[in-house]
C-alpha cells in the first residue's frame, strides 16, 4: 500500500487513483450516507472546495487503486465548519495557518470490514504524520455523531467545539484534534498507528 499526499489542483481525470477517490466519495457520501452533494457525470462527487487549496491524503493499493482518503482544507479560506456549520461551535470556529480542517474522510466500500479498519488506521496515521511534517497543530472537523466515538477511540487528543445538533443529514458535532509530537505514541497505544511506508508527497503544477 502507498500513502500519497496530493497538493494543488487534483482533477478527477488526471490519474486513476484520484478518479477512484472521487468515485468512491460518490459511493460513500451520496449513495450510502445520502448526503445532498453535487455529482458530476453521475459518477464522481466533487464540490467547490475541491480546488487548488485542498490537500488530499490518500491510501492507495498496489496497483494505485484508491482505498481511502481525506480532504484537508485550510481554515484561513472558506471551509465546511466556518462557512456551512458555524453554529456547531460554542465560540467562533477556530481558524489559522496551523489549523486545518479534515473533510470527506472516506474508506472504499470494496474492502471487507477488517481491511477497512487497516486502511482507516493507515489514513489516521498518515494524517498525523502529515500534520507533524507540515506544521499543522490542530485539525478541526464536522463529524456525524456515530463517528464521534470512533474518533475519540483513536486515542489522540480530541475535544468537542460545541454541542451537537440535528441537520437533514444527521446529528452532527464539531471537533478539534490537537496534534503534537506525542500523537503517534497515543495512536500506537490504541493499536491505530500503522505507517508502513514513507508517504509520497505530490504537488501538482499550477495549470
Amino acid at each position, binding site marked *: 500500500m502507498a500513502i500519497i499526499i496530493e497538493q494543488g489542483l487534483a482533477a478527477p481525470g488526471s490519474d486513476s487513483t484520484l478518479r477512484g477517490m472521487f468515485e468512491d466519495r460518490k459511493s460513500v457520501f451520496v449513495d450510502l450516507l445520502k448526503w445532498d452533494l453535487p455529482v458530476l457525470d453521475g459518477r464522481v462527487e466533487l464540490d467547490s472546495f475541491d480546488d487548488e487549496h485542498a490537500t488530499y491524503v490518500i491510501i492507495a493499493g498496489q496497483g494505485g487503486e484508491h482505498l481511502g482518503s481525506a480532504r484537508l482544507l485550510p481554515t484561513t479560506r472558506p471551509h465546511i465548519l466556518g462557512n456551512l456549520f458555524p*453554529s456547531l461551535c*460554542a465560540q467562533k470556529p477556530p481558524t489559522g495557518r496551523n489549523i486545518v480542517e479534515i473533510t470527506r474522510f472516506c474508506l472504499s466500500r470494496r474492502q*471487507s*470490514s*477488517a481491511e477497512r*479498519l487497516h486502511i482507516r488506521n493507515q489514513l489516521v496515521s498518515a494524517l498525523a504524520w502529515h500534520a507533524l511534517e507540515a506544521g499543522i497543530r490542530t485539525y478541526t472537523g464536522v463529524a456525524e*455523531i*456515530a463517528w*464521534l*466515538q*470512533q474518533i*475519540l*477511540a483513536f*486515542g489522540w487528543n480530541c*475535544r*468537542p467545539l*460545541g*454541542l*451537537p*445538533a*440535528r*441537520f437533514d443529514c*444527521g*446529528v452532527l*458535532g464539531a471537533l478539534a484534534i490537537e496534534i503534537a509530537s506525542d500523537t503517534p505514541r497515543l495512536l500506537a*497505544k*490504541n493499536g491505530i498507528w500503522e505507517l508502513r511506508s514513507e508517504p509520497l508527497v505530490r504537488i501538482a503544477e499550477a495549470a
Partner: protein
Amino acid sequence: MPREGPKQHERTRSLRCAWNALPLRCAQPRVEKFSRVEAFVNDVRRTSTEEDLKEALAAVTADLGFRYFALTHHVDVRASGNAIRLHNYPDGWAEWFDEQGLGAHDPVHRASNLTSVGFAWSSLEQMLVLTRRDRQVLDAARKEGIGDGFTVPAHVPGEAHGSCSFARASGETLGPDHLAPLQLVGALAFEAARRMKRERFSSAPVRLTDRQRDCVMLAARGKSDWEIARILGVSEATVGEHLRHAYERYGVGKRTLVAVHALFDGTIGFFDVLSP
C-alpha cells in the same frame, strides 16, 4: 446496518422526532450547557481511576438535571472481568438486575445495539418489539425510582458494544435540550472508561489470521467445511484446522458461537455476512 427490515424506518423516524426538537441556533442555555461539558472534558483528562471518573460523571449528571448514570459494556462474553461498568443506580436495583442476568437482555441495551445516536427510553416501543419480560424490567426500574432516561450508544469497531445512560428521578421528564450535552458526556465518559480499562488490563483483543477470518466469515454465512474448502481453494482438512484454531482463540467449541463472537467483536461485519 442497511438490512434491518421494516422496523428500520420506524426507528429512524422516532429518533428523528427526538432530535427534531433540538434548537439549531446557539441559544443561551446551549452555551451554558456546553461550558459544563467542557469542564467535564477537563475533569476526565485529569482522572486516572474509575473512582474519580465515577465522581466526575455523578457531578455532571446532577448538573445537567439527572439523577442516575450507568456506563457499561453490554456484556463481555470473552472475559467478564474486564468489562466496563460504572453506575450510581440504587443498590437494590443493580443486585436485582444482576440476579436476573439482564446484561444481555436489557431492552435498553438491545435498542442501543441498533442505533448509533442517543435515544430516549420513551422511544423504545418504536425501536423494539417489547416482550413481557422487557415490560417487567421497565416497570421494576420505575418502582426503584428510575424515571425517564436517555441512552448514548458507544460502538467502537472490534470491541464489545457499550452505552452510557442517564435517568431522571421518577416523575421528571426528558426535555429536548437535554439530548445534545448528554450525547457528548456519554461519548466522552465511555472513552475515558475505555482508556482506564486498557491501561489496567493489557489483554489484547482476540486476533484471527486472515485465513481464519475468511473461514469464520464463510461459516457465518452458513457454508459447510466442504463448501468453504471449494471457495477458498484449499482442502477440507485445512478449513477444519483454521476453524479449530479460531475456536481455541475465542475459547469456544461450536461453529455458531465462533461466528457470534467474531461478529460481536467486529472481526467480521454483519455486512460481510449478509451481503451476497
